[in-house]
């Protein structure tokens, strides 16, 4: 009786506004894309697109630029995830100790996370330009032979975007790992020390397994964030040189700009499929390797 009376005080109607906004502006567009991706929807035929089956998908998967975008997206997502995780963990392990200036270092390493990607992109243009800060620095320390027009070739341009993204977000992972490390009870370490376990042993047999929940969060966020990359590529290379560094989202935007709405929708759907699949697999894998602390 009390339960029923109590529920009146939490009317389900209060969930409705959130439900409506969320459904309308995230779920509905996905369903629309799915539908339109099977049509010849374009800017000239906004109102009455015709059903074309898998044509858009066939076109995409025979378009070398699209395949390149897909490859770049995966490369970007996985390599940034690796770098951000390793650097973040390294910083966390150093900063968990009482190093002088601890607070200042944490503040500094986290700082890029609150900056707009546009600002970071423009800033790094000044660093990576052929007459930019990096080359000037290399010249002044006698390493002129290493100077390069960093954004002018595919290999150096994509590597630059990967490093900049990792530079931006490593501090975020650092914070999560610090919280994870603090949550490990110190008697585990004391017991390990009593048993005479070495530092390396302790790290791999105690620290890493107990950090799995933190790894789950970090890796899931990094991968899904990396697959969605748009701003950094758009600002830093705009998909260039040529179409070499295009990613899925810049590809979808370019198709949209050309009025090829059906093709753009199909590209967005492929990306959505990739993101959902990878997050699902990751979550299952990581969740199953969590141990009880």
């Amino acid at each position, binding site marked *: 009786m009390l339960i029923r009376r*109590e*529920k009146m*005080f*939490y009317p*389900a109607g*209060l*969930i409705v*506004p*959130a439900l409506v*906004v*969320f459904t309308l*502006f995230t779920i*509905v*567009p996905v369903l*629309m894309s799915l539908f339109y991706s099977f049509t010849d929807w374009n800017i000239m035929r*906004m109102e009455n697109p015709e059903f074309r089956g898998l044509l858009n998908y066939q076109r995409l998967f025979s378009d070398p630029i699209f395949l390149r975008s897909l490859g770049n997206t995966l490369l970007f997502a996985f390599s940034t995830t690796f770098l951000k995780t390793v650097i973040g963990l390294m*910083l966390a392990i*150093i900063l968990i100790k*009482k*190093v002088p200036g601890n607070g200042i270092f944490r503040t*500094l*390493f*986290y*700082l890029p996370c*609150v*900056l*707009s*990607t*546009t*600002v970071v992109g*423009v*800033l*790094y243009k*000044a660093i990576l*330009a052929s*007459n*930019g*800060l990096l080359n000037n620095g290399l010249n002044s320390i006698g390493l002129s032979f290493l100077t390069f027009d960093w954004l002018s070739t595919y290999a150096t341009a994509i590597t630059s975007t990967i490093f900049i993204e990792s530079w931006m977000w490593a501090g975020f992972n650092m*914070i*999560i790992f610090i919280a*994870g490390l603090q*949550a490990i009870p110190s008697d585990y370490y004391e017991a390990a020390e009593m048993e005479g376990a070495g530092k390396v042993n302790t790290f791999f047999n105690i620290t890493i397994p107990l950090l799995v*929940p*933190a790894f789950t969060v970090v890796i899931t966020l990094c991968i899904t964030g990396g*697959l*969605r990359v748009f*701003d950094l590529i*758009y*600002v830093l290379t705009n998909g260039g040189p040529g179409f070499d560094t295009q990613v899925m989202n810049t590809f*979808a*935007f370019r*198709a*949209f700009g050309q009025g090829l*709405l059906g093709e*753009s*929708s199909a590209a967005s759907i492929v*990306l959505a499929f990739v*993101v959902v699949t990878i*997050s699902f697999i990751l979550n299952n894998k990581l969740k199953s390797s*969590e141990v009880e602390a």
Partner: protein
Amino acid sequence: MEIMIKRKKNIIPFIILLGISMFYFIPIIMMILGSLKDQTEAIMFNLNLPKNAQWKNYAEVIKRGKILNGYKNSFIITSISTILTIIVGGFAGITISRRNDKLSNGFYYYFIFGLTITLQIASMFSLLKSFNLYGSFISVILIFVAQRMPFTVMTFTSFVKGVPRSLDEAAIVDGCNVFQLYTQILMPILKPIILTNTIVTIISVWNNFNISLFFLNSAKQWTVSLTIYNFYGMFSRDWHLVFTALVLTIIPVVAVYLWLQKYIVSGMTAGAVKG
């Protein structure tokens, strides 16, 4: 003696950190120094001090770059999005957590599923067109609120689980109504999670670039991020002005960060560690 040994032990990590911090300091120093140089000095891209500090760069950028207009637009969009996110998402989160029945748990997972959803440029464009919203502030605000829902609902739901029900029961026995229960009893206790969500939303909306790029069409509506991007396009030879514009762009958000750091850090990692 013991302190001395401790200090010595910590000196190597300190030096490593100092080395790493150069990667963070150098771009920032380059930007700040560059904003005070003249055109020929700035384009040298080095860390030399400016010969004469050119404070007039700031006046020029504010006048020519329409930065203040960008501030205004970003401020309007960010504040409305944030307020709506907290009210709409917060109420949903509290309700889901307290009802804790099959239906609301279903809704919870429905919201969480949203974390994996990607932005659909073409369909969103057509959706906004059909509501006659394309190119309006309302359209981008609604998109931001929708995008914030999974995180907001998730963090509110888990926070409310830790608030004892006896508190609600006492208030109900005392005869308060639904509205009073949410706003006067629960909201004050939920202050930390409200603050966290407020700050995370402010930062993500203020810094956003792609949604305003896709769905705002006139230069008058440009947000700070769009303004700086276009400013760079127009003044790419005037690096002294570009650096100045960058400094002006990040000042508000860096100020908020340094001031409310504790909440930002706890917010960005909220729910993350508990799992």
